């Protein structure tokens, strides 16, 4: 088969101990038998390791932080597009998604396709909106409350029993076993990510996760269930294994069909000893462990790109159970000249 040439731009090149999904996403796209893909990295920081992985990323450009606003971002993407002629752009960070969703029509105007959740889908699955989400779609969720200042901790905690989870709006989650820890954790997370902060009931059980892709019309294009086998001190999976769990896949189908989810997603759930599932989080993008889905027979990154191109994708109906991923660290050696080029010219 003659491979089609394609240029895909993506973020999340921070392949660190709390990795972004960029590199595993890219590996999936490069595994495609249909595309001959040029990868354009979009980076926020000079030391995102993916920038220097030239076997995976052909060229990288700095882009402005989401706080700079859509206009600034769009101008930068337009500049990059004039050089690279991007076909598909896949953002991978929760915090940047909103900006890209807002800019998607403008991106389309300059020939760049995206495949993102709608603003409504993105908003309603927010950690702070999870109780409403659970009610609306008939999914069990842990009790949670959102606080907007440190003063609300004491009154809010009257409705909870310790331990509780303290979660940032986008990132970070810690467990608190007493009021002192709750206060300290709220301070720590708010100092880093600001308010609101979510206080969430702790559900006893085993955490299970699903990476999935919705076509935007209610069909699950693919879904792979995984259990973390090794978790880092940041709560990230360092190893995991695919599971045969029909109930979990059914629940995923239910969520995708009801929400008509568009794009990649990660469901984080707790399976109780009574085999009940509590949805604790929906991440509105493919997760950093997405390459496990590729290894298990569902190339979701490739499917996402095809959906973005407006092509029909036949839904996957199976995956290999018992496939493991084990992350590793690796010292990439590069030259100061590379760092210099990126620092001075914002591209490499």
């Amino acid at each position, binding site marked *: 088969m003659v491979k089609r040439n394609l240029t895909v731009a993506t973020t999340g090149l921070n392949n660190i101990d709390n990795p972004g999904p960029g590199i595993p996403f890219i590996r999936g796209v490069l595994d495609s038998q249909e595309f001959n893909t040029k990868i354009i990295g979009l980076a926020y920081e000079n030391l995102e390791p993916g920038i220097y992985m030239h076997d995976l990323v052909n060229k990288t450009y700095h882009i402005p932080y989401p706080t700079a606003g859509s206009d600034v971002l769009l101008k930068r993407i337009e500049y990059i597009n004039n050089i690279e002629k991007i076909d598909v752009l896949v953002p991978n960070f929760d915090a940047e998604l909103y900006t890209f969703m807002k800019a998607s029509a403008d991106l389309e105007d300059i020939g760049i396709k995206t495949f993102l959740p709608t603003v409504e889908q993105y908003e309603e699955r927010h950690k702070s909106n999870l109780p409403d989400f659970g009610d609306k779609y008939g999914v069990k969720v842990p009790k949670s409350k959102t606080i907007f200042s440190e003063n609300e901790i004491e009154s809010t905690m009257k409705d909870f029993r310790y331990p509780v989870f303290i979660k940032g709006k986008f990132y970070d989650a810690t467990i608190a076993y007493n009021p002192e820890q709750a206060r300290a954790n709220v301070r720590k997370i708010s100092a880093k990510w600001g308010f609101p902060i979510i206080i969430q009931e702790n559900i006893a059980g*085993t955490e299970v996760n699903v990476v999935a892709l919705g076509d935007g019309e209610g069909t699950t294009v693919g879904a792979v269930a*995984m*259990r973390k086998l090794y978790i880092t001190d940041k709560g990230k999976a360092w190893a995991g*294994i*695919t*599971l*045969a*769990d029909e109930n979990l896949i059914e629940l995923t189908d239910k969520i995708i069909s009801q929400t008509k989810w568009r794009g990649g997603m990660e469901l984080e759930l707790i399976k109780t000893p009574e085999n009940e599932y509590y949805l604790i989080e929906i991440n509105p993008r493919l997760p950093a462990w997405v390459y496990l889905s590729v290894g298990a027979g569902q190339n979701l990154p490739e499917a996402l790109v095809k959906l973005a191109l407006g092509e029909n994708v036949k839904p996957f109906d199976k995956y290999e*159970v*018992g496939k493991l991923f084990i992350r590793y660290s690796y010292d990439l050696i590069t030259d100061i000249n590379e760092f210099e080029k990126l620092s001075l010219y914002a591209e490499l």
Partner: protein
Amino acid sequence: MKINKKVALSETGFVFDAGTGDSYSINPIGVEIIEYVKQNLTKEEIKKKLADKYDVSAPELEKSLDDYFSALKTFNILDNE
């Protein structure tokens, strides 16, 4: 007694539960007992087979087998009926 459908047992004694992702190592006698369960032998029949084959007193065999089946149920290798 039935082995959980999602459990795979290799000849080496490695057990993988595809439903939970858990894995265990079982010694050769443990594997032998699971093979008997797979052949639909009753607990009494298994006990007799083991008593004929190994030098073990009846009370010790009874206790060990009960403990083993209890562990298999705890880890969902054996279906709880």
